[in-house]
C-alpha cells in the first residue's frame, strides 16, 4: 500500500492566539507548533495500514520553518517526506499542490485530518478528491482495508454511517481512527536521515485573500448565582440574557 499523509503545521491546541502588523499576521512568538492533531490521527492509521511492502509519505505545504514538524512525522514512522515550499495561503492553494504531486505518484490512499486546527476549513480533502477525480470522504473515525476496498465509519450528526469505497480515495480523519504513536529513540534518530524532498509550488490562480484578523470581544465578568438558590439562574437567563 502506497499512502500519502498530508500534515499541517499548526499552533498547539493550548496556544493563546494573537496577531501582529495591524492584525494582518499571526504572532508566532512563544507559540509551539505541532502536527495538526487530526493529521496525526491520519498518520498513525497510515503507519498501521502500511504493511511490509508499503510506504507512507508525508506531505506538508509550508515554508522552511515547518521542517521540525515534518521530522516529527518521520520520527513517528513515515518513510519519507515532501515539503512544498510555499506558505499555505488557502484551501484551494494547498489542495492544488497536493493534487499536483499525487497525480504523478499514484497513491492508493491519501489521508489527512478532517480539518487543520488553524483555518478550520475542512475543504482540502474534498478538493483533492475532485481535482484527482477520485472519491473523498470525511470525517472518518474508522478505516479498514480489505483487498482493494476501504470500509470506513464516517461521523454524521448524532451518529455514524458505515461506508465502502474502492481505492484510491481521499479521507479526512479524526479520532478514534488510531492511537497516536509516541516516537521512540530509534525513530527520532532515523528521522534525521530519512529523505525530505523540497519542491517548488505549482502556480495557482488566487481565489481568496485574507485581509485581516480579529480577536473576539473580551467577555464581561461572570455573574455568580448563589448555590443555595440556583433557580435564580433561570430568571437571569430569561429576563437578562434573554436566551430562554
Amino acid at each position, binding site marked *: 500500500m502506497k499512502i500519502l499523509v498530508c500534515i499541517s503545521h499548526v499552533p498547539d491546541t493550548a496556544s493563546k492566539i494573537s496577531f501582529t502588523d495591524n492584525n494582518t499576521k499571526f504572532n508566532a512568538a512563544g507559540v509551539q507548533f505541532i502536527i495538526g492533531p487530526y493529521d496525526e490521527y491520519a498518520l498513525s492509521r497510515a503507519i498501521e495500514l502500511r504493511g511490509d511492502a508499503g510506504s507512507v509519505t508525508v506531505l506538508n505545504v509550508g515554508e522552511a520553518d515547518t521542517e521540525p514538524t515534518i521530522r516529527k512525522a518521520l520520527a513517528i514512522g513515515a518513510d519519507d517526506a515532501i515539503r512544498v515550499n510555499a506558505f499555505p495561503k488557502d484551501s484551494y492553494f494547498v489542495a492544488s499542490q497536493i493534487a499536483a504531486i499525487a497525480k504523478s505518484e499514484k497513491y492508493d490512499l491519501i489521508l489527512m485530518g478532517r480539518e487543520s486546527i488553524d483555518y478550520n476549513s475542512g*475543504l482540502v480533502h474534498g478538493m483533492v478528491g475532485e481535482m484527482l477525480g477520485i472519491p473523498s470522504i470525511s470525517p472518518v473515525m474508522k478505516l479498514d482495508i480489505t483487498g482493494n476496498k476501504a470500509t470506513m465509519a464516517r461521523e454524521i450528526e448524532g451518529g455514524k454511517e458505515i461506508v465502502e469505497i474502492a481505492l484510491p480515495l481521499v479521507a479526512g480523519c479524526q479520532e478514534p481512527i488510531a492511537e497516536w504513536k509516541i516516537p521512540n529513540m530509534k525513530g527520532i534518530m532515523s528521522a534525521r536521515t530519512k529523505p525530505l524532498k523540497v519542491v517548488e509550488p505549482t502556480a495557482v490562480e488566487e481565489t481568496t485573500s485574507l485581509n485581516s484578523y480579529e480577536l473576539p470581544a473580551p467577555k464581561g465578568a461572570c455573574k455568580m448565582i448563589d448555590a443555595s438558590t440556583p433557580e435564580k439562574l433561570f430568571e437571569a437567563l430569561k429576563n437578562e440574557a434573554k436566551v430562554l
Partner: protein
Amino acid sequence: MSVLVFVEGVDGEIKKSSFEAISYAAELAKKKNTHAVAVVIGAYPADALESLGKYGASKVLNINNDKLKQPVIQPYATAIAEAANKETADVIILSKSSIGEAVASRLAVKLKAAVVSNVIELPDLSGGFKVKKSLYTGKAFANIELKADKKVLTIAKNACSVTETGGKATVESFAPSIPDTDFSTAIKEVSKATGDILLTEADIVVSGGRGLKGPENWHLVTDLAKALGAATGCSKPVSDLDWRPHHEHVGQTGIKVSPNLYIAIGISGAIQHLAGVNSSKCIVVINKDPEAPFFKAADYGIAGDAFEVVPKLIAAAKNYK
C-alpha cells in the same frame, strides 16, 4: 444571476439549519438585487417545498432521484453544480454540516469558485465580496475577500437569524445528469440516536464532565436537558472513558457548538473544551471548584455541588420553558 442555497433534510423533514441557510441566501440576494433559489434533494410533500418561500426562497428546485436517497458526496456535488449552472447562480450557500462541508469543497472545484467555510455573518459587498470566518477553533476571526466570479460559502449556525416573510415558492422539478462514476461510495449502514435533539442544531446544550463521577449519574444532564428542550454533550475525558459516545464530545477535536445557551456541569474548562463552545451566545458553568478556569469564560456561574444544585434546577426549569 441568483443565489442558490442547498437545503438539507433528515428523515423526511427539512433541517432547521437549512431555514437559516435560506434566510441567509435571501438576505444576500436582496443585497445583490437578485433572488434566492433553494435546491432540495429527495421526496417532500408539495406544501413543504412551497413553504420554503416563507424563509425567502422565490423558487425551489426539487431533485427527486432514487439514487440520491442517501447523502453521498460526489453525486450531490454534481447535482448542486448542475443546479447552479441552470440557475446561473454566482453564489452558493450551504450549511456547515457533515454533508454541506463535504459537498462544498468538490462543488467549488467543479465551478471554479472561491470557497470559504465557517462564515459567521452576511457578506460585506461594499467594494468586493468579503466575509468573516471563524478560525483557530473560535479563538479568532478572519476577514476574507473572495476573488473568483463564483463563490461558495458554508455558514456556521447563528450566522443569520431565521426570518419568516410569508411568501410561497414556486416548485420546479429538476433532473440533473449524474455520471455513473459518481456512485462509487456505498453507504452500508446508518446508525444514529433517534428522537434526540441534534447537538449541532440545538438552541440549548447541556454538557457534563468528569465532575459527575460516572455514567450512572448522567440522568442529571439528560433530565435537565429534557426539561429545557436541550441537546446533551460531554467533555473529552468523558467520551475517552466511554461514559458517553464520541458524537457527544464537545471541544477542539470533537463537535463545535454555537447554541444560544450552553450549560456545563462538572467541566473544569480546559482550553480545548472552550474552543468547542466559545461561540455560544451565553455560557453557564456549574462547578464545585470556584477556581475552575471555565468561570472566566462564563456569563453565569454557580459554584456548588452538581448533585445538590442540578436537581433543584431540573425542578425549577419546568416553569421557565
